[in-house]
C-alpha cells in the first residue's frame, strides 16, 4: 500500500497536470521538479508552477496485454506518450477507445479517472488518463 501522504503530494500533477517551469530557461517539466537540470543552480528559487495543456497528440503508443491487478478489468489497453499542445511529453493510459483506431498523431485530451484503490477499504487513487479528443 502506497503512503497516503505521498499520494496526496502528487494530487496537483495527477488531477490537473500541474508541472513546473524554469523561469531561467523557460523549459517545462512534468512531473514537476525542484530545480532545472539544464540551468542547475541558476534555477534555484526560480521554478514556477505551470499548468500543462490537457490536449495533445499521440507521439507513440503500445498495447498492454499483461496488466497489473489494478487494470485487470480494462485489459488489453493502450499506453501512450502524448506530446501536449504546449510541448510537454506525458505518458498515460488511453481509454474509451477502439484499440484498432489508436495511431500516432491521434488527438487526445486528459480526463480524470480512477487509477487504483488500496483494496476494498483503502484510499482510492484518482489521476489523469487520456481519451480521444471530441
Amino acid at each position, binding site marked *: 500500500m502506497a503512503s497516503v501522504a505521498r499520494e496526496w503530494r502528487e494530487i496537483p500533477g495527477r488531477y490537473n497536470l500541474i508541472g513546473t517551469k524554469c523561469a531561467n530557461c523557460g523549459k517545462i517539466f512534468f512531473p514537476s521538479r525542484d530545480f532545472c537540470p539544464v540551468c542547475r543552480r541558476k534555477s534555484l528559487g526560480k521554478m514556477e508552477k505551470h499548468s500543462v495543456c490537457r490536449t495533445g497528440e499521440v507521439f507513440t503508443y503500445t498495447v498492454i496485454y499483461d496488466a497489473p491487478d489494478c487494470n485487470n*478489468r*480494462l485489459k488489453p489497453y493502450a499506453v501512450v506518450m502524448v506530446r501536449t499542445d504546449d510541448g510537454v511529453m506525458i505518458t498515460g493510459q488511453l481509454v474509451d477507445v477502439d484499440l484498432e483506431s489508436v495511431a500516432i498523431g491521434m488527438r487526445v485530451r486528459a*480526463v*480524470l*479517472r480512477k487509477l487504483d484503490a488500496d483494496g476494498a477499504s483503502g*484510499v*482510492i487513487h*484518482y489521476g489523469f488518463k487520456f481519451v480521444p479528443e471530441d
Partner: protein
Amino acid sequence: MEVGIVSYGAYVPRYRIKPEEIGRIWGVDGKAMGKGLMISQKSVPSPDEDVVTIATEAARHMMARVPQVDPADIGAIYVGSESHPYAVKPTSTIVAESIGATPAMTAADMEFACKAGTAGIQACMGLVGSGMVRYGVAIGADTSQGAPGDALEYSASAGGAAYLIGSEDVIARINRTLSFTTDTPDFWRREGQPYPLHGGRFTGEPAYFRHITSAAKMMFDAMGTSAADYKYAVFHQPNGKFPTRVAKQLGFSPEQIEYGLLTPQIGNTYSGAVPLGLANVLDHAEPGDRIFVTSYGSGAGSDAFDITVTDAIKGYQRGRAPVLEKILSSPVYVDYGTYAKYKGKIVMPE
C-alpha cells in the same frame, strides 16, 4: 438579486447495454421489459469511472464554457449522489481540487435518492442570493446500483451534470424554487448494503406521482401559471413511462418534454437525471424560453423550479464543451459479461 444558471456541463459514460441482453441472462423477455419501462438502452460506466470522475468531467465542461469565471471565486461545491465512492470522505473536495476551486470555499456531499442534485442547486441559490458566495456549484451524478435480475437492473445507469449558480451573466434565471417533502419509504439502501430495495408498485402513486404533482401544482399556484406557459418541461425520469404520464397529468404535451427526457436513451441516472434533462434543454434553448423543472427523490421529496432563459445565452460559449447530443453520439454496446465485469459484479481475488 437575480440568481440563476451561469453555466452548465454534462457527462455520460460511453458504454451501453440493452434490456434484451440483460433479459437474455435472467430468462426474462428483456425487450418487453424495456418496452414497458420505455428504455431502449442504459449507460454503463467504465471500471475506472465513478461519481468522482463523472462529476469532475461535467464540472470541467461547465467551467470550459465560462473562461471569464475564475474558479477561485467559487465559494461552495455540492455533489449530490447516492453512489459516492466513499462512505466517509467527500466527493466534492476531489471535484473542487480538479477544477481549481480550493481552498477558500465550502463543500459537502449530498444524498436524497434521485434529487440530491437539485437540492444542491437550491442550496447554492440560497448562498448566492444571500451574498455569502459569488458562485456555487451544484452537481448531480450517479453510478446507480440495481441488484442482478431485479427490475432496477434494466434502468440503473450512470451520468451527471454540473451547474454554476451565480448572479452575474446568468443564462437562465431561476424565477422561483419550492419543494414538497414527506416521509415516504418507497426506495432505500441501508448502510453497507450493495443494492437498494424498493416497494414495487408503492414507488408509483403515493411516491413519484404524489410528490411531483404536488410540487408542480404548488409552483403553478405560486407563479399563476399553467403548463401552457412553458416551452419545455423536465421531470425526474426513473424510466420513460413515469415522466410521460406525469407530464400528461399536469397538462404538458409530448413536445414540451422531448428534450428533457433522456432516460429512454441512457437509462435512469438517478441524481444525474433531472440535471442531465435540463442540460439537454439548455443545449437547445433560446432567449425567453420558460422551463418547468420538477425532480423527485425517494424517501421522498420533489424540488420544482421555474426558469427563464435570458439574452445572455446568445453570448454563452456553449461550443467550448460538448453538448449532450455529441456526448451521446458514439455509444459502445457491451454484453452482460462485460457489463458484470465493468460494474464490479464479479468477485476478483484480492
